[in-house]
């Protein structure tokens, strides 16, 4: 191993920076995308902190009902004589006001951050896993016959079938028929959104499987699942990464739409979607309950979309040449 690097150094063949490093530098140059990436990192930290502070060490209690304190505008300090002092919000102030039950909207938003992001990430995790498995198998085993149909035909026709369903209507049907649970929502969104990933992965695998490193791996009798998932998948991951980033955004949007129709994550769990959906009835009396989660969703989804678009540009050499 050492001799190879020395030889490369001597002949000046060694790439100055690794491929990933190079792409990352291109991504960093795109200022909007990079700042949305930083924003998302911060958001992730907020989500963890929110989970910790609302569930494990309850500093902000999102489920504390204080009926005399309902519909207080943001930044009202706690001065009530009726509600006992131990029910007071943290630091004696309602940062984002209270809702129709006198719950602290700030605490609920904090709790919702982690729930909303979990819904997005788990749903996308499921769809990416399915996409890689189906796309990888279709791309790798392509021409192998299975009865009178090839493996590729079976899987890609199945993808076509799935693409024919009106996705949102299908999600709505299944979520409405199943008992309401946050896990069902994540699973259903994941199960209905893997088709794009499968197509990308298959297209990448069709070129990858003809390359030398795959032939080399095969000649060493490495088991086929290892070749597919350990050797080939990392080489096909760039488009998957891009579509996953945008997938998180659309999963958050789908969850909020389901909440709007009343089939989203059920109370007492708070997500941005159901805070927004509950708040819409009071839009004239207490606009903050609608606008705070609404704009939070807007900014976060926007950050995911911009970040995904930046990644797409960085990982697509064709787009770079045009500049």
């Amino acid at each position, binding site marked *: 191993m050492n001799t190879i690097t020395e030889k490369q150094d001597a002949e000046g063949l060694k790439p100055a920076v690794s491929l990933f490093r190079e792409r990352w530098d291109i991504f960093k140059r795109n200022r909007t995308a990079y700042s949305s990436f930083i924003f998302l990192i911060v958001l992730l930290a907020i989500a963890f902190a929110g989970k910790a502070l609302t569930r494990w060490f309850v500093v902000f209690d999102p489920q504390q009902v204080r009926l005399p304190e309902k519909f207080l505008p943001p930044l009202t300090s706690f001065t009530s004589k009726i509600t006992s002092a131990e029910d007071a919000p943290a630091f004696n102030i309602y940062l984002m006001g209270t809702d129709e039950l006198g719950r602290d909207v700030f605490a609920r938003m904090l709790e919702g951050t982690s729930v909303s992001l979990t819904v997005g990430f788990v749903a996308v995790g499921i769809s990416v896993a399915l996409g890689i498995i189906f796309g990888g198998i279709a791309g790798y085993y392509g021409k192998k016959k299975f009865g009178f149909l090839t493996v590729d035909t079976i899987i890609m026709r199945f993808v076509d079938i799935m693409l024919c369903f009106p996705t949102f209507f299908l999600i709505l049907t299944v979520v409405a028929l199943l008992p309401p649970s946050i896990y069902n929502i994540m699973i259903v969104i994941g199960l209905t959104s893997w088709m794009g990933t499968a197509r990308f992965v298959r297209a990448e695998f069709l070129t990858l499987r003809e390359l030398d490193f795959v032939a080399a791996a095969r000649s060493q009798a490495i088991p086929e699942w290892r070749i597919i998932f350990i050797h080939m998948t990392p080489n096909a991951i760039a488009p998957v990464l891009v579509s996953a980033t945008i997938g998180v955004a659309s999963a958050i949007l789908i969850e909020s739409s389901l909440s709007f129709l009343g089939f989203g994550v059920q109370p007492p769990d708070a997500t941005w979607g159901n805070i927004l959906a509950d708040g819409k009835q009071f839009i004239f009396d207490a606009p903050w309950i609608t606008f705070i989660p*609404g704009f939070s969703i807007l900014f976060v989804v926007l950050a995911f979309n911009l970040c995904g678009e930046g990644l797409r540009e960085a990982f697509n050499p064709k787009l770079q040449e045009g500049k």
Partner: protein
Amino acid sequence: MTQFIIKSIGQRIVLLFFISIISHSIVHLAPGEPSLVDPSNPRMKAEDIQRIRAAFHLDEPLHVQYVYWMKDLFTDELKSFKDNQPVLKKIWDRFLNSLPLFIVGTLITWFLAFPVGIKAAINRGSTFDKTGTFLAYALISIPGFFLSYICIIFMVKTFNVPVIGMRTFGLEDAGLLFRSMDRVWHWTIPSLMSAVAGVAILSRYVRSQMLEVINQDYIRTARAKGLSEDAVIYRHGLRNALLPFITMFGLIIPGLIGGSVIFETIFAWPGMGRLGFEAILARDFPVILTLNFISAILVLVGTLISDILYAVVDPRIKF
């Protein structure tokens, strides 16, 4: 060509068969039955539930139920569980309500997205391009119903116009002009709202497609032989950039059902999406299944048409 059409129609019929089987199994295997919608009703006795189940064939095995559904569907005997109305007529009535909304929305989408996308591509990197790009992302990222609520409040407060429902109640005796203006106002906001996401996505596509074409050699040739800039962009550039959008015809059709659920609920518009939503709430299996089936047919027909159009428009494609 004829051979190609026959072959793709055959393939699509096979696909349709599998789609109907899958949607049938999903709907029937999921827990919850039409007989369980109103469990707290004291007048529902065990034998009533038994009678309902027998009438809807719910005790038969799945494949027998599938055959019943298919047979009833094609003989036009299919009845809704909820109100015993013929399903196809119900869907047709709602389809006629959805259609104007869909057509106006699509027109807004296409007539707005193309000029914006082309202008952004021609002036790449300009303020217009940058604002347009950012605005497009913002419009994709905002939850549709949130934007609609803001828009409803804004419109009603500023212009004092009606926006909810299909027509203003009690205006039946008014003059024709009044009635048609009323109708137009009721169309405007819902179709605008359902077009918003489409405009944002499509203008991005148009922009990237135009950029790709503008960098081609034949555009340079066209410029080199001294054609005017308009001729270069619109005759040589745009026509080539348009090709991929033919495929999008097939992809916008499912929006007729799936995409409209939210907007028809917000604007109380009695269309297909709303029908589907009501059917889901009532566990009205025939309506859900038939809506799914029809939308699958629409998608398959749409992709077939776009495949054929593609071959007609682009002489490079041969079968």
